[in-house]
Structure formats: C-alpha cells, structure tokens
C-alpha cells in the first residue's frame, strides 16, 4: 500500500511509540469509538441475517423469494449504493484537502444516489405489499422486511446525517469537529455498503438461484 510505505518513510527512529506519545488525538479516539459502534451494528445485522437464513423456507404457503424478487431492480440498487460509496470516498478526499465546492458536489451526488436506492427499495416494498406479500403473511416475509427494512432505515438515517453535515460545513467550515463527524459519516456510509453486499448476495441472489 502506498500510504503505508510513505507513512513508514517518515522515519521510525524519530517517532516515540504510541505509549510514550501520550493520549491519542480526539480524531483517533472518536473514529475508533465509531468503528466499535459500526462493528456492533454489523453484529446486530448478523442476527437478522441468521433469522432470515433460518426462516427463508418458512413461507406458510405464501409467495417465496423466487416469485417476489426482481434481480434487475436489485442490480440497479446495488449499482446506486456502490456508486454512492465511491462518491462518498471522493467527498472524504475533498474534506481532507478542504475543497468546499468539491465537498458539496460529491455530497450532493452521494445523496442523490442514496435517495435513488431508497426510492427503488420502497417501490419494491410497495409492489410486494400490493400483492399481499406483507410482513404478516409468513415468517419468511417477516424476516425479509426486518432485514432489508433495517438496512433501509440505516440508509435513511445516513441521508439525514449527510444533510446535517452539509449544513454544518456551510456554517462552521472544516473545523476539526465537523471534519471528524464527516469522517464518521463516511465510515457509516461505507459500512452500509458492506452490509448491502451480504444482503444482495443472501437475499436476492441465493434466494432466486435454483
């Protein structure tokens, strides 16, 4: 990794070790704490994944995944979320070099892609509910709506957070507190994409595969 190499080139002999250097900076402590939160969030999702995997055949005579899921729409949702993860990374770079206009542009693209993902997902839910595939219909559908809906709620929270962060950048600029929060937001957004990778594989691909 080029980053690791250049970091090492700074010269180890001149640098005190982490224990000699005193407490870590707030930026490191905050992002590490947020990383722990994200991992616990992923552990929560793993329980929902386990519930879904156990209940996937418990359709109670109702519709199964193969009849309900549309791979085309799942593919578009995946593309939206992956692209928004990329633009979120571009936004992080813009924040790192304090380019305000680029930050706004990439945040806007990230927001639009995230909102498109959410709109597609809600459209899919609405279509399922319209044909009677509601969460009450079977254990399989309860688990499906809990798992996918929980991810959708996270995306909604992320979109609200992004708007709040842009308001903070507009008011406060890139002061350390704002750029810490932006870094946490970027972590959150990338973690959502990681969960979606598991989700589209388990729900939309394995569920439809013969």
């Amino acid at each position, binding site marked *: 990794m080029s980053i690791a190499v250049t970091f090492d080139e700074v010269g180890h002999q001149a640098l005190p070790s982490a224990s000699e250097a005193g407490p870590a900076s707030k930026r490191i402590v905050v992002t*590490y704490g947020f990383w722990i939160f994200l991992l616990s969030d992923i552990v929560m999702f793993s329980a929902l994944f386990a519930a879904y995997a156990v209940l996937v055949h418990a359709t109670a005579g109702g519709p199964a995944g193969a009849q309900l899921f549309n791979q085309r729409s799942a593919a578009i949702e995946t593309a939206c979320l992956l692209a928004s993860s990329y633009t979120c990374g*571009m936004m992080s770079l813009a924040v*790192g070099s304090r380019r305000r206009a680029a930050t706004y542009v990439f945040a806007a693209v990230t927001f639009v892609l995230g909102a498109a993902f959410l709109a597609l997902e809600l459209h899919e839910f609405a279509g399922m509910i319209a044909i009677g595939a509601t969460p009450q219909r079977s254990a399989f559908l309860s688990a499906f709506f809990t798992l996918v809906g929980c991810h959708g709620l996270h995306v909604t929270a992320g979109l609200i957070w992004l708007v709040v962060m842009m308001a903070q950048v507009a008011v406060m600029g890139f002061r350390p507190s704002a750029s810490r929060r932006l*870094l946490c937001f970027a972590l959150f957004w990338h973690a959502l994409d990681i969960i979606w*990778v598991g989700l589209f*594989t388990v729900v939309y691909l394995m569920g439809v595969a013969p």
Partner: protein
Amino acid sequence: MTDTHYDRGPGDTLPFAQAQAQAPSGVVIYTVGLFLAVILTATSFWAANTSLLWAPGVPLGLAVLAIAQIGVHLVFFLHITTGPDNTNNVLALAFGMLIVTLVIGGSLWIMTNLNANMMPSAELMNLQMQH
C-alpha cells in the same frame, strides 16, 4: 504539529500535510476499489443467473464472492490495512467477525440439526416451519 507514531483512526488516511501530497493516490485507491467491487458484483449476478455453472456449487461461489467484495470494501474504502498503526482497528474487526461467525454459523448449525433430528416426517416439518 509534532509527528508522533500514533495509531491511525479507521477510515482515516493521513494527517493533512501528508494527505495533500497524497491526494491523487487517494483517488486511485478509491477507483481501484470501485473497479474491483464492480467486477465482483457483476460476477455474482452472472453466477446466480447462468446455467453454465454446476447449480449446487453456486451458493458457495456467491458466498466467496461476497466475502471477497467485503474485503475489497474494507481495504479500499475503509482503509483498514495491516500496518502497525492499524492494529487496534484490525483487532476490533476480528472480534466483530468472530461474533458474526458465531451468530450466523451457530444459528444455521443448530437449526439444521433441530430440523434433522427432532422432526420425524416432512409433513410434520412443514406444519412446524410454515406457521
């Protein structure tokens, strides 16, 4: 700013002075990550729909592709590396993955065993599982 050998926060790249010199390579890292992720995603969708592959092996292949893509996201988007400044992040990640494995693997294992051992007939299993 005094240079000290601190740990690096997850998702963080470098202090500002170095980050500016690194700006182009940051774009390259994200772009390589996107490229790999797109390839893995496209392969997943292809594998789930093709008839060229041996069908019973497809779910395992999909799982491998998903885990590979999660690795790509961790390295290229979340900047989790094996560097000495990332030890804490990697350890936390390892503990998280341990719990995830226990929860998912344990649930599937015990429920498969229950279904196999405690349900005498397929009809009864349907009664049990379909309500």
